[in-house]
């Protein structure tokens, strides 16, 4: 018996010793990961030290003097450089704390996708960006400066918490950090969104790109089984070389080539790595992003809205075609309104890019005047997280229900509308046959009806523009269009609110909708501010008065008139509004304007180039003809209804 046990034991000992030799011939997996985590800790310590030094400088210097302000400014810049050295990690790993370090506004009301059910929450400003902005104000106080930087330092310390650093032990977080970094390169880092001194945007970018290359090196050392491939690193290095060759001047940076030839291809590669390595997210930062999106300009880069609604689990092509058929018919059917005379198409005419280009604002349901707000295009509406111009709705179906039952818009009653729809045998048969796809609903509901409508019109959000083709397929664009895009991203500062790639108010990681106060006048002559309080009606806080959700610019050349009240008939009038500093720049009283009141000094030629770029965002929308007939109703009174409604 003894001999029987001895042989296997010897073999096992030998095997274990081989394993031991193999692992001891290099650093253990744990040690290798530590090398990567060490870089994180080293940079975090350097960032903290730079902020402590800044606090000491603020304590020693007089911010009322030029010399004192210059010294403090140098301290802020040094701290920003340390922040940028680890921005790739900071932005992703703890976004709430990051906003205390690098928040762009004194007060923001946050409404992110995960808080959709909650009231917006207030975030008091803090951090280095605000400290730098505050330094330029008159009567700057030392204690206020200290407060802004102390809050930033406290937020920085959060990044040393175990709950964050333990994520550095597995490779998944890195690829998701890298992806967000690339999206920020595309949408934010080159646009002065978070760097108040435009003269430092490109030098900061240059330094940050090189610091990130160091992170790549450490990651490949730490995680040799899931490395960034050589091809990726070569491409990344080429991006650094490109930026190195660019002029320092922010207004002369070639955003177009940087995005098309460098950031775009890197994004495609990182998406392939995320798929290939089976990277898993544990962060709401990835909530809306689509792992399958191939390019930044893919229309499915992120999900803003669930277009299918109640039919979200339907994938059968025949069923989807039937939902679309029903939705199309309902979109043009005045049966959905209280008086049977108004349809969705009344204000969102498919032939006018799903808006009404003929009126500043629509006629009220009962013909008693006009509505206060312009009917926006429904094309790409699903690329927003919050809907309506004041962001009051969180889903397309809720938005549609609101319009349908609003006494000033369609004047319908939810119960009666459903009954009328089901009184049409064609609709009844169609929806009842679809019930098999919604087993949680034993009977047809208004939600089925609304979901069919939203499914129909969101089909038109899947199309692309010449600009998309230039970015993804290398299609040629006129030089004026490219110059216009570079202006859009640079001197004209449009991209600080209308973010790449959808040019709406949804910025990386594409989980929320942004609002801005730009001082839109009541009349084209700027005699007074529009009295519409906008977001304030949903969230009555002083900062939100006259704030509106940032609209998308795709197809903008087709969707005049512009602004929430349709006050401007031409794109040029809108560009002039921004060029002259919004309402405040024109002398209107807008104390909470988020747009700088300073003029942009755009030349006539530059304005033409901007318009050329905006025209290149016109998408290849197919025709959307109305149905030739509407379903017959058992109630004969409805059989004479007009396709598309009467007004």
């Amino acid at each position, binding site marked *: 018996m003894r001999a029987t046990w001895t042989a296997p034991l010897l073999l096992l000992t030998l095997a274990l010793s081989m394993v031991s030799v193999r692992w001891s011939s290099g650093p253990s997996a744990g040690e290798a990961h530590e090398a990567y985590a060490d870089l994180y800790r080293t940079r975090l310590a350097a960032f903290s030290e730079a902020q402590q030094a800044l606090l000491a400088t603020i304590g020693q210097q007089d911010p009322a003097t030029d010399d004192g302000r210059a010294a403090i400014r140098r301290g802020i810049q040094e701290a920003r450089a340390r922040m940028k050295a680890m921005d790739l990690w900071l932005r992703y790993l703890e976004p709430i704390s990051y906003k205390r370090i690098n928040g762009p506004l004194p007060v923001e009301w946050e409404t992110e996708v995960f808080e*959709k059910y909650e009231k917006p929450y207030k975030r008091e400003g803090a951090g280095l960006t605000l400290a730098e902005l505050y330094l330029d104000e008159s009567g700057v106080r030392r204690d206020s400066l200290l407060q802004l930087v102390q809050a930033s330092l406290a937020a920085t310390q959060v990044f040393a918490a175990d709950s964050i650093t333990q994520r550095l032990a597995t490779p998944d977080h890195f690829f998701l950090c890298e992806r967000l970094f690339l999206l920020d390169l595309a949408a934010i880092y080159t646009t002065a969104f978070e760097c108040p001194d435009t003269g430092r945007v490109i030098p900061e970018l240059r330094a940050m790109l090189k610091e990130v290359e160091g992170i790549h090196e450490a990651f490949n050392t730490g995680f040799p089984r899931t490395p960034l491939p050589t091809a990726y690193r070569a491409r990344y290095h080429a991006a650094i070389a490109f930026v190195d060759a660019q002029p320092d001047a922010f207004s002369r940076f070639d955003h177009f080539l940087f995005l098309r030839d460098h950031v775009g291809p890197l994004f495609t590669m990182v998406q392939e790595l995320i798929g*290939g390595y089976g990277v*898993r997210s544990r962060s709401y930062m990835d909530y809306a992003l689509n792992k399958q999106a191939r390019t930044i300009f893919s229309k499915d880069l992120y999900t803003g809205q669930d277009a*299918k609604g109640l039919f979200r689990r339907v994938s059968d092509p025949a069923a989807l075609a039937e939902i679309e058929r029903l939705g199309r018919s309902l979109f043009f059917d005045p049966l959905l309104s209280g008086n049977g005379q108004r349809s969705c198409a009344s204000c969102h005419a498919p032939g006018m890019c799903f808006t009404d280009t003929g009126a500043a604002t629509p006629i009220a349901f009962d013909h008693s005047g006009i509505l206060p707000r312009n009917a926006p295009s429904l094309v790409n509406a699903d690329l927003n997280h919050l809907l309506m111009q004041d962001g009051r709705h969180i889903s397309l179906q809720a938005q549609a229900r609101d319009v349908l039952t609003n006494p000033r818009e369609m004047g319908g009653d939810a119960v009666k509308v459903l009954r009328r729809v089901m009184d049409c045998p064609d609709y009844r048969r169609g929806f009842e046959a679809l019930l098999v796809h919604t087993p949680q609903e034993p009977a047809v509901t208004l939600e089925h009806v609304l979901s069919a409508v939203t499914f129909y019109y969101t089909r038109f959000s899947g199309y692309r523009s010449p600009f998309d083709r230039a970015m993804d397929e290398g299609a040629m664009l006129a030089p004026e269009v490219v110059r216009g895009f570079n202006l859009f991203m640079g001197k004209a500062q449009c991209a600080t609110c209308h973010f790449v790639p959808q040019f709406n108010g949804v910025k990386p990681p594409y989980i929320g909708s942004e609002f801005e106060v730009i001082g839109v006048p009541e009349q084209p002559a700027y005699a007074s501010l529009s009295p519409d309080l906008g977001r304030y009606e949903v969230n009555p806080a002083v900062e939100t008065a006259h704030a509106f959700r940032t609209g998308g610019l795709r197809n903008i050349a087709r969707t005049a008139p512009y602004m929430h009240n349709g006050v401007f008939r031409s794109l040029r009038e809108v560009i002039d509004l921004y060029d002259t500093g919004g309402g405040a720049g024109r002398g209107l009283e807008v104390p909470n304007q988020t747009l700088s009141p300073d003029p942009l000094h755009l030349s006539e030629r530059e304005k033409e180039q901007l318009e050329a770029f905006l025209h290149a965002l016109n998408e290849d929308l197919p025709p959307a003809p109305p149905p030739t007939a509407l379903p017959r109703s058992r109630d004969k009174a409805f059989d004479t209804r007009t396709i598309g409604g009467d007004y």
Partner: protein
Amino acid sequence: MRTPHLLLLAIIAFVAVTSRCTSQKELAYDLPPGTEGDSATAFVEHWRKGKVLYALNCGGCHDTLVNGRKVVPDFSLPQLLDYEMRYQYPAHDDRLREVDVSIAELDDIQVYLQYKKRSGVPVAPLPKPQPPPKVN
């Protein structure tokens, strides 16, 4: 004549008892204490929808085989938090986005799992992650 009558009665009694069992089984919930009237009606509607939605979206992975029978396990309250469900489980990464299960539907599933009768079966541990494939 007496025997067929008794047999018929026995069959009716059997059907009545089994259908009552089925009915109870289908609606095996613990109504939150103090819930009545419209609130109770609304609760039952949420619970019923949640049960269907759980079977559609969750049961395939979470139901546990016990003596050859699929049993819905008992989830703890922390496991039923929105944030936990959406983000803290890598397996949910591509399956529990809002386009897969809406906010309202997730609420219904929570109601179902929180108030269903306890099965006594704990939630099975998550499968171990697979090693990453080779990427060139």
